[in-house]
């Protein structure tokens, strides 16, 4: 081992030690770490950081949890402000929740955290706040024109229990216990200001299960979310972080849509593999378009079968979701849900279709209109919940989420 390597190992150790407990724990903690190391194979074992120690910065121009690589577990929560809440109380609420989110995301217990030991593994925890029209009005801000329920679609079977709200919390981490603790802390601190309207929990693959960057699979087994914006690209900057026609307080923020889409797994079971692939226009094996080989291959919508039908059917989800207009695109950041079956059934499953876009009306609605008019996948899927929120920008240390609104 060269001197450089040794120094590097030492730095990693001390950094990890600081993350775990702070310098005041001193030599005793080094002893404990040493015991831990002695059971491992050698220097290479030391270098692998635990998933739980990973953090995502909280403060910044944009809120975290949007351009963050999706974590494995998420809770989406809508709160309703209690009647009589005034702008001053709303500010106090936002300050408290910002403090909780900032601390927990960095692996620090919240102030007055009754279970501080649950805060030590942030596991890329992010808390993303969204504002409904009621909250924006209470703060005296101008609402973007799209901040309202989506237009009614023919395929919708919306349950009001999954609709709307004043304040959205998207709490996500690569650890379900971390999400639960953050949720508990944020809801305790919201309790004197608001009531819980709905909670929707979702999941993806656990960290380490598949190669990082692998597109999610939904509970139909489909590769779900292939074409998506990449953070840092001009598309992402314009169509997610772009100002569009939004009021100034929202600059640096974006728009949020959650569609709770029930998936009829029992009906899907009756469909053979070819039918399943035709409904979407992609293969089940790797998500390649039916005209391609690899997942990221561009679909060839003109390709015809031997008897003259399109290889990617006219009714397929892939064809219907795609627009000629490059502005009609959205960032997808969805999660599967698999809740308790209702009486007489064995599954209650679906997709929390979470999207971010600067202008919901210009980007999301046209896509949904096309899918509403024709999409074979509608045979097995039903939107049962719908909510739209404005995602305010991030804040600087010392500020709070929503401070541009007051």
């Amino acid at each position, binding site marked *: *081992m060269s001197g450089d390597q*040794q*120094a590097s*190992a*030492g*730095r990693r*150790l*001390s950094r990890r*030690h600081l993350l775990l407990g702070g*310098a005041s724990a*001193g*030599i005793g903690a*080094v002893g404990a*770490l*040493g015991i831990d*190391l*002695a059971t*491992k194979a*050698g*220097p290479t074992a*030391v270098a692998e950081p635990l998933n739980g120690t990973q953090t995502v910065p909280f403060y910044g121009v944009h809120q975290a949890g949007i351009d963050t690589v999706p974590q494995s577990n998420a809770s989406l929560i809508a709160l309703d402000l209690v009647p009589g809440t005034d702008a001053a*109380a709303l*500010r*106090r*609420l936002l*300050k*408290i929740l910002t*403090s909780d989110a900032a601390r927990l995301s960095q692996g620090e217990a919240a*102030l*007055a955290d*009754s279970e501080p030991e649950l805060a030590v593994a942030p596991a890329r925890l992010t808390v993303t706040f969204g504002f409904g029209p009621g909250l924006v009005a209470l703060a005296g801000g101008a609402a973007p024109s799209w901040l309202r329920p989506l237009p009614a679609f023919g395929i919708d079977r919306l349950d009001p229990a999954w609709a709307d709200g004043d304040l959205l919390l998207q709490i996500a981490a690569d650890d379900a216990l971390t999400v639960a603790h953050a949720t508990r802390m944020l809801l*305790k*601190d919201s*309790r*004197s*200001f608001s009531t819980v309207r709905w909670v929707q929990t979702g999941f993806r693959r656990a960290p380490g299960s598949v190669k990082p960057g692998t597109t999610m699979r939904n509970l139909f087994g489909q590769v779900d979310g292939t074409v998506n914006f990449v953070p840092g690209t001009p598309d992402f900057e314009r169509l997610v972080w772009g100002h569009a026609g939004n009021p100034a307080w929202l600059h640096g923020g974006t728009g949020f849509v959650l569609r709770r889409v029930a998936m009829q797994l029992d009906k899907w079971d009756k469909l053979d593999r070819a039918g399943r692939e035709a409904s979407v226009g992609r293969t089940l094996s790797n998500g390649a378009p039916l005209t391609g080989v690899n997942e990221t291959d561009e679909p060839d919508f003109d390709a015809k079968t031997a008897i003259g039908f399109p290889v990617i059917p006219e009714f397929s989800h892939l064809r219907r979701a795609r627009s000629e207009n490059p502005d009609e695109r959205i960032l997808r950041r969805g999660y599967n849900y698999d809740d308790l079956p209702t009486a007489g059934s064995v599954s209650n499953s679906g997709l929390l279709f979470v999207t971010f876009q600067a202008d919901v009306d210009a980007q999301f609605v046209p896509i949904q209109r096309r899918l509403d008019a024709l999409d074979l996948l509608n045979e097995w899927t039903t939107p049962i919940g719908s909510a739209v929120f404005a995602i305010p920008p991030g804040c600087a240390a010392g500020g709070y989420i929503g401070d541009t609104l007051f």
Partner: protein
Amino acid sequence: MTLPATPRILVVAVAALLALSGCATTTDTAAPEATTTAAASLTIADPWVKSAETGMSATFGTLENASDTDITVVSAESSAATMIELHETVEDDSGAMVMQQIEGGFIVPANGSYELAPGANHLMLMGLTAPLVAGVDSTFTLTLSDGSTFEFTAPAKDYSGANESYEETEK
């Protein structure tokens, strides 16, 4: 010299830690001048107040002393309460843990810390002057034994704990 890999990492780890604490010591060599007040060396980490509509409440946080001399907090005041006492937890004759005013103030050890926490030492607020609702900031002034004062601001948080009983007869 040949050593198995693991012990060598241990040596490096301990050395790195020693180097860290070495750094901390060197920053401390800017020794307080004779004219420096105790307040100049005192900080508080993570202060907060338990929210309450009326009556009593308590303030918590970790006092930290960066000097080589103990710092004694002798009293506290705030516009949030008509009176503030420095309280400690003690076991009474029946074995119950009760709160009472501490004799001799909070002593924050040299280069050390002193924790104010639910169920333990705290600033006891009596006679709240206004509802301490969640998210409201209150300012506190601690008077130290050298006469200097240290001011800090703490937000109120809803908290269901810190329901300790109090010794009825003060000493």
